[in-house]
């Protein structure tokens, strides 16, 4: 063993940030790989959200309880029938190139650009019947039917406002501004040094008083987990966002007195790690098999040993941090191998010669031998204890997505985001209407239940929150009883930041809302 403190201190000599010496107040963040573009809706991934969250803003902001607050919209109202939403925009907002931000930009973003590029926006915006612009700073959305997740779908990561004067009438995919984006946010794009960093500079004309709190943000390319960990320990980088840090060394960073660890920065996405069974095939079509699977796997172990505590056992399709989660109605499946064996016996899946009952494949998510491989190896081992002979398959990304999209699997792995409202993030996996061959991230399992098919639309169009809650409670009851999916655990990715910064995480959308509020501690 070597003395870790000396070692890390040693490395600080190489990795400290002399740029601070130049007198500028800088945030050093990192990116795990270089983004393909900086056009927010064109590639709505976490890396882009982290960067573009500082550049592009949305109409609303959300608090920890997912309640909307004004942002680019000065105020907003909803009609009692839930069909009309009226937004008054701020009139003091300028794009980074100096053009004023107006209703035209909102209409362009919500009616044209976002639905075309961002599949996640399309669902919500397809509810819009028409948009009216009574004046330069007012937008009125009229919906076809009530959709109570409408406001939530205006969260920055789903609906960033894009500049109409830059994009309108151009080919969005090839627009040169994709590499030098224009927004209204607290930081503007300054420089992209390929293979090294992307620099954002302070937006001097930012509308929010007192912001931004720093002069610049550097997103430094840090492709390997070891490199990222050392960079955090030495202070070369101030912020490590979700999954930047390998869970194995989380405890070590968490113990570092110079660092703050947050596990609530991604509640807005609300990710659940699941395994999906191809319910078209026997025995996966049998509820008892799925229940036995759940009983056979010690999900506490997954959280503790594999995720090193960063997470929570998932019992419901709706994450425990999101609205509508109802713990009372859930059927839970605690770790109980005996129960699992009994269920398998009951359904007639008796052990054959060699002690195994059934052989099937678990298709992993390609993560280069990372967490999923570990999860898979543990689950394989746990299943073999109850007589299920699972073999792991490690396809590359395209193969994984193609096979899952074409339903060529027994069991696959997935992480899905609930995005704050089941109508946005959850229903897509259970609706019969969303069984679409060839399209990844749909109802791949082939789960189909008429009652569920009826309840989801009713819940989404309920005008009163109470009515929606009733529907969602019933849905959670049905889905967990059916074991409609193998929910493993809710992911709580850690965000680490240096104590020299403060106000890093301000809401459930975490860094995707931008780092405008960040200032020196």
């Amino acid at each position: 063993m070597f003395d870790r403190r000396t070692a890390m201190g040693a490395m600080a000599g190489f990795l400290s940030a002399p740029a601070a010496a130049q007198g500028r107040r800088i945030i050093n963040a990192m990116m795990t790989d270089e983004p393909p573009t900086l056009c927010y809706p064109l590639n709505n991934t976490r890396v882009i959200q982290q960067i573009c969250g500082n550049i592009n803003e949305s109409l609303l902001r959300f608090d920890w309880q997912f309640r909307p607050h004004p942002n680019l919209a000065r105020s907003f109202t909803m009609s009692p029938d839930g069909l009309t939403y009226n937004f008054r925009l701020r009139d003091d907002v300028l794009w980074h190139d100096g053009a004023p931000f107006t209703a035209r930009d909102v209409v362009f973003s919500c009616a044209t650009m976002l639905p075309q590029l961002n599949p996640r926006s399309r669902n919500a915006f397809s509810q819009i019947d028409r948009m009216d612009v009574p004046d330069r700073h007012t937008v009125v959305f009229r919906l076809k039917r009530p959709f109570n997740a409408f406001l939530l779908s205006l969260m920055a990561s789903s609906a960033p406002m894009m500049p109409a004067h830059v994009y309108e009438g151009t080919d969005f995919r090839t627009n040169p501004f994709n590499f030098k984006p224009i927004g209204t946010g607290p930081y503007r794009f300054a420089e992209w040094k390929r293979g090294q960093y992307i620099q954002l500079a302070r937006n001097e004309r930012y509308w929010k008083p007192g912001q931004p709190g720093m002069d610049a943000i550097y997103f430094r390319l840090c492709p390997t987990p070891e490199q990222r960990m050392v960079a955090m320990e030495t202070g070369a980088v101030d912020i490590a966002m979700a999954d930047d840090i390998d869970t194995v060394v989380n405890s070590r960073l968490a113990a570092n007195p110079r660092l703050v660890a947050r596990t609530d920065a991604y509640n807005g996405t609300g990710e659940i790690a699941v395994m999906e069974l191809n319910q078209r095939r026997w025995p996966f079509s049998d509820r008892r098999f799925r229940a036995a699977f759940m009983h056979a796997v010690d999900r506490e172990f997954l959280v503790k040993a594999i995720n090193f505590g960063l997470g929570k056992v998932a019992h419901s399709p709706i994450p425990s941090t999101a609205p509508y989660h109802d713990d009372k109605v859930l059927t839970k499946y605690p770790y109980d191998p005996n129960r699992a064996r009994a269920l398998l016996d009951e359904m007639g899946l008796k052990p054959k010669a060699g002690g195994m009952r059934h052989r099937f494949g678990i298709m992993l998510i390609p993560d280069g031998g990372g967490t999923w491989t570990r999860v898979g190896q543990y689950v394989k081992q746990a299943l073999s204890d109850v007589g299920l002979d699972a073999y792991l398959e490690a396809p590359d990304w395209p193969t994984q997505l193609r096979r899952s999209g074409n339903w060529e699997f027994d069991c696959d792995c997935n992480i899905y985001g609930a995005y704050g409202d089941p109508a946005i993030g959850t229903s897509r996996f259970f609706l019969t209407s969303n069984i679409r061959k060839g399209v990844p991230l749909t109802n791949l399992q082939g789960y189909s239940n008429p009652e569920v098919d009826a309840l989801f639309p009713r819940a989404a169009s309920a005008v009163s929150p109470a009515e929606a809650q009733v529907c969602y409670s019933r849905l959670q009851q049905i889905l967990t009883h059916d074991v409609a999916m193998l929910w493993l655990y809710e992911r709580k990715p850690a965000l680490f930041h240096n104590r020299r910064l403060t106000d890093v995480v301000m809401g459930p959308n975490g860094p995707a809302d931008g780092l405008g509020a960040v200032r020196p501690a």
Partner: protein
Amino acid sequence: MMRSVRLFFAKPATIVAFAVFVAIVVIALAAPLLFARGPFTIVGMPLLPPGAPGLLAGSDVLGRDMAVGLAYGARISLLVGIASSIGAVGIGILFGAVAGYYGGLVDELLMRVTEFFQIIPSFVLLMVLVAFLQPSLGATVIGIALVSWPQVARVVRGEFLSLKAREFVQAARTLGMRDSRIILTQILPNALPPILVVGSMMVGSAILTESALSFLGLGDPNLLSWGSMIGGSRSAMWVAWWTTVLPGLAIMATVLSLNFISDRLNDALNPRRQR
């Protein structure tokens, strides 16, 4: 023959290398008997250091016994090393013999193919092959054999080219022997020593290649190999050195002993030393 054996064991280092190799083979063969529950069984807390109760080599990031993993890893390394070398040597002999003996168009074609393999970065090609075939033991073996046979083919071709000009081969032709017989009974036995040496060197390099693939996450996820042990604990290296150091030493010991053996084989089978 006896002379070769004697020459082979002439140096004490060879005896050590041979002993190490035999020990590794024995461990690999005995692993299922010694550790019946397999390498994936979780036996305790993660990242326990070597010497912890019952854990000779510590535990890994999942709390699995490293010693068991090392023993089972030997199976994968040796299996992949030997199987892919046999494959490569087989293909290489076939093409090399035909090209070297007949020359002409076949030879020209083979040379172009080996040139292609020389020009394309073979490890990248291998990654592509394995990724496309889907990582599995079979894919690894096939992939390694496919990218390494040209090397054998070149050696075989060279041997055949020089041997076919030797007078005893010409004599065989004047005696009216058929080509297939000449290749099999006259040339091949004489070309075997260098093929054997290349083959044994190849086992070592195949083991290294396999470990590299597994390290990059392109190995069979159902099997624990030394490379995947290292790859799976890359980050843990900072908190638990044994998770990466021990499997690396295991690879090194295996390949080193193999290289010593093939080096001595080279000396022992070298016709210049014989006679």
